[in-house]
């Protein structure tokens, strides 16, 4: 079966520094793909190339059989690909629900309406409320996003990405800065999304990643150095050497037991 999302032979350099050197990834429909690797391995750059923030110097990105290479973030978003950010990117003055509302495709389709009262678009607010509920922020709808706690902002970040009704969702280090409890809640959320979406996650927390991912790609030196199911990757020498491997392996053992 053809992959839903495919990147082939991506190259990206900044000045003399080669950040991506021949990255190829193929993500199947319905899959949850994890991406791991050490700091500076090019994971976030890879995301930025895949979602249109940077243009690759060479290589091709296709989604659902169509070429996405070099499209702007707006055009990538309109094709059904959504992303969250490692460093949070919210509309800080807006309430939680308004953050979601503005990201809805139904509102985007009316974006050039200058006379209609957005407050009267009940279906948009209903939809936004259900997304807030999904990410666990039902009680915070009217709180300005800058007034939310760190964990809540993380959840809203994912909510805004979900609001676009994507077919494919990229999450950039969603557990960054979350405590054990927050990470557990996030794992539940991602687990529930997994049934409806194709998801690609960059993550340092191997326990989190190995528990959820169908397949994991390891990126190092701008290349994919290993790829496989979490169980298969446990045997990989790099993964074993990694300082995080123990935690990941424990998680696996716990999951297997």
């Amino acid at each position: 079966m053809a992959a839903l999302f495919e990147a082939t032979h991506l190259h990206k350099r900044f000045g003399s520094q080669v950040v991506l050197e021949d990255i190829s990834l193929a993500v199947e429909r319905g899959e949850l793909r994890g991406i791991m690797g050490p700091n500076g391995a090019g994971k976030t750059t890879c995301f930025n190339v895949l979602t249109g923030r940077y243009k690759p110097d060479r290589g091709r990105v296709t989604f659902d059989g169509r070429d996405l290479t070099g499209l702007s973030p707006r055009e990538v978003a309109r094709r059904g690909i959504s992303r969250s950010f490692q460093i949070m990117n919210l509309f800080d003055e807006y309430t939680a629900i308004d953050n979601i509302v503005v990201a809805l495709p139904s509102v985007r389709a009316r974006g050039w309406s200058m006379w209609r009262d957005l407050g009267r678009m009940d279906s948009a607010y209903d939809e936004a409320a259900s997304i807030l509920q999904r990410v666990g922020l039902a009680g915070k709808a009217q709180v300005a996003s800058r007034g939310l706690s760190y964990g809540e902002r993380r959840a809203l970040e994912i909510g805004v990405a979900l609001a676009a009704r994507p077919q494919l969702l990229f999450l950039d280090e969603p557990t960054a800065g979350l405590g054990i409890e927050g990470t557990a809640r996030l794992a539940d959320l991602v687990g529930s999304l997994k049934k409806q979406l194709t998801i690609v996650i960059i993550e340092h927390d191997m326990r989190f990643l190995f528990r959820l991912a169908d397949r994991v790609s390891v990126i190092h030196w701008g290349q994919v150095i290993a790829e496989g199911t979490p169980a298969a990757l446990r045997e990989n020498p790099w993964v074993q050497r990694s300082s995080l491997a123990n935690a990941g392996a424990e998680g696996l053992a716990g999951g297997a037991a």
Partner: protein
Amino acid sequence: MSSTSRSTPLVTAPMLVTLAALARAPLWLGAVGLYQYVALEVVIWMIFALAHNLLLGQGGMPSFGHGAYFGVGAYAFGLLQQQAGAGLLGGLAGAMLCTALVGAFVAAFISHRRGIYYALLTIAFGQVMWFVAMKWHSVTGGEDGLLKIARPPLELPGVRLSLTSNEAFYGFALAVLAVVVVFLWRLVHSPWGRVLRAIKQNEMRAAFVGYNVWLYKWSAFVLSAALSGLAGALFAMAQHSAYPNVMSLHNSGFVVMMVLIGGGLVSFWGPVIGAALFILARDLLGAYTEGWLLWYGLLFMAVVLFQPEGIAGAWQAWRRRGRGTAPPAPSTPSTPSTPSTPSTPTGPSGPSVPVARQGEA
């Protein structure tokens, strides 16, 4: 339905209060030692400041050369009248169209910029236009400007109103202000307005949820320029002339001061408050001292330092204290006793967003 508390009425109480207060101005102006013309200028500057705030407050685009569009409107109105024989409404529409076109051209060069670069480019374009107005004698009249611009009568089917007196023209300007206020009020509550404010808060995120950030910024600039041109055209009528000074950096600075002191960053009404305060300060302080701008400048510095959200911001903070709530607004949906307040003069971005969605079944 509870959802109506989220919606925005076409006309709100502050609108009616403001317009009513302005409409009564001719009755008391004389009593406080002012003259009719001042009220006229206040109303014109209110339109200009509102137009400017569409960029600065709503869109987060610091245009520091906006006097240029005010000036283009003034010249366009004068030229259309004197060269093409345009009447009142035709002249105003033509002036708006001309400024919209100039704005569209300029915005095409700056809409991918932000912050200080945006500001510098707007100043540069503003200076270019001011220079053109100074030097292009055959069209603009150079430093003397265009003189003898008439106030054409208002001609509607079955009515013909002369606007030559300051009183009559004031009434007309007030009607224009009312239309502009209603239009902008709708605009900031429309999907377009909300997207613009989202872009102000986070351009990158707006692009990643699928918006054409450049085009929204461009269109905001065009609209703002057109409304500034409208104000400029009215000013040309008020002054019976159009001259380069209105395009100067000075004038561009004045409108920024109005918007910031009034509180345009946090409130729809900020520019209206600021314009009134500025013109009144000019005339009242100006009566006592040549150096009134010094005192006003000190006031401006104090506001920027101690009350950066301006008068409207201070008012909002005072009201919040009065209600015993602290920002951010409480999210308890179980207080139906609080009257929903979509009509208070808080800005659309104020934290007192009415509670929506009570008791989802």
